[in-house]
């Protein structure tokens, strides 16, 4: 039930909404069959060392409270239904970030008998973070790129090389 009025009032309201959305992405984390490497990196991202709360990111327990579904690993036959259900339980507007090579293509598990495929084949994905596993900086970069695409800004430059 989205009203599309192009009055100044409506535009201002939309801007406020986008501002709030960009500044308060609450995340939920789901492992759909990853080897746990990516999960460890996500947990490292949430530690005080990287402190995602300064961007407003908060890890939520319930999918009903979350805006961003951070998903790792290929989708196994067993976890497909659960993944879809968690995705459906999230209220609109919702976004999905697939972390790790496995989430992009199936990675190391490609072609296994128990694998449905990549995350993109099961639910719509908004941002991919490549790497096996990606560094915490890369995961932050992926989330920031997603948020900037909401503001219709070009994505920031790629993560600089480690010295």
């Amino acid at each position, binding site marked *: 039930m989205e009203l599309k009025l192009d009055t100044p009032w409506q535009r201002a309201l939309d801007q406020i909404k986008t501002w*709030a*959305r960009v500044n308060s992405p609450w995340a939920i984390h789901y492992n759909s069959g990853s080897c746990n490497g990516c999960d460890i990196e996500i947990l490292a991202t949430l530690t005080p060392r990287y*402190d995602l709360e300064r961007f407003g990111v908060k890890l*939520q*327990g*319930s999918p*009903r409270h979350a805006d961003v579904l951070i998903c790792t690993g290929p989708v196994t036959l067993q976890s497909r239904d659960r993944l879809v259900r968690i995705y459906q339980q999230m*209220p*609109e*507007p919702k976004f999905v970030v697939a972390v790790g090579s496995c989430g992009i293509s199936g990675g190391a598990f490609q072609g296994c008998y128990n694998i449905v495929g990549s995350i993109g084949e099961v639910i719509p994905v908004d941002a991919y973070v490549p790497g096996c596993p990606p560094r915490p900086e890369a995961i932050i970069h992926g989330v920031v790129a997603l948020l900037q695409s909401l503001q219709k800004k070009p994505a920031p430059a790629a993560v600089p090389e480690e010295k």
Partner: protein
Amino acid sequence: MNNITLPPLIALLLFPGGLFLLSFSLFFEWADRKLVARFQNRLGPRWFQPLADVVKLLAKEEIVPDGVHKGLFLVLPIIALAAALTAALYVPMLGFSPAFSFQGDLIVTLYLLSVMTLCLGLAGANTADRFSLIGATRTLTQLFSYEAPFLLALLGPAIVVGSWSIAEINTLASDSLWFILSQPIGFLVALVGLMGKLELPPFDAPEAETEIVAGALTEYSGRGFALFRLGKDVELVIGLTLVAAFYLGGIINPLDFLWKVAVLLLVTAGLQSLFARLRIDQTVGLWWRVGALLALLQLLAIVVGRYLNPLLFGR
């Protein structure tokens, strides 16, 4: 000392009832989160973070799950927030005299603050989801454990002053020795009771995300969740104001209010980051074995003191 009185319409809509209290409570949530973050050696959220959170939640889709009583589901957050905002009218917010005041408003305020917890419990019991049900049970169990000691702790100053009105206690508390010095046990019980009331970290078993997802509010999304959060923030402000007015020598002017409440916030934030979560049976045990006994002891000391005082000193 007398506090300044405000006309009723302003009291309801702007100060201390509506707009002011909402923005102030968002500021308090930020201060609380920032302090905890600093204690954990993090940078912490930006100053507008709670505002962005609330606006985002309000703009989100609100899902009404299957198997709930729809009216109850939609109306409970509103009642919770309304009760919290109403309680603010009886409290000397920012050092102005309370907008409304009568003998016994202390009890009314405490009940209004409990309505929030009852709404949380009802909201959890209303949904068919097992996590909300467990969360609701724990919320209500916790309510029964901290409520009596908290009430007893606030009773101490009331008995000494001999009045049931928050305004009178506030005025008299600012004229006499700070109650934190004469009743240190009561202060401790009141402050820790407040943390139990707000389900702040050592007492957050009702919303333990590692066990029961998000407790009673698991099924709430969007508007309902935003209102419950706001209600909790408002309760934080009112609770801290109450404890400051009772135990830290009353609140006379805005400056007085700010530094006293800031000190209390610092202490609660420190306690939050110091202690790990208690199991629900540990919480109940702590309150009934230690909290209630200490509060009763304090009360006994006050009563005996009041009885002995005229005998010994002939006053």
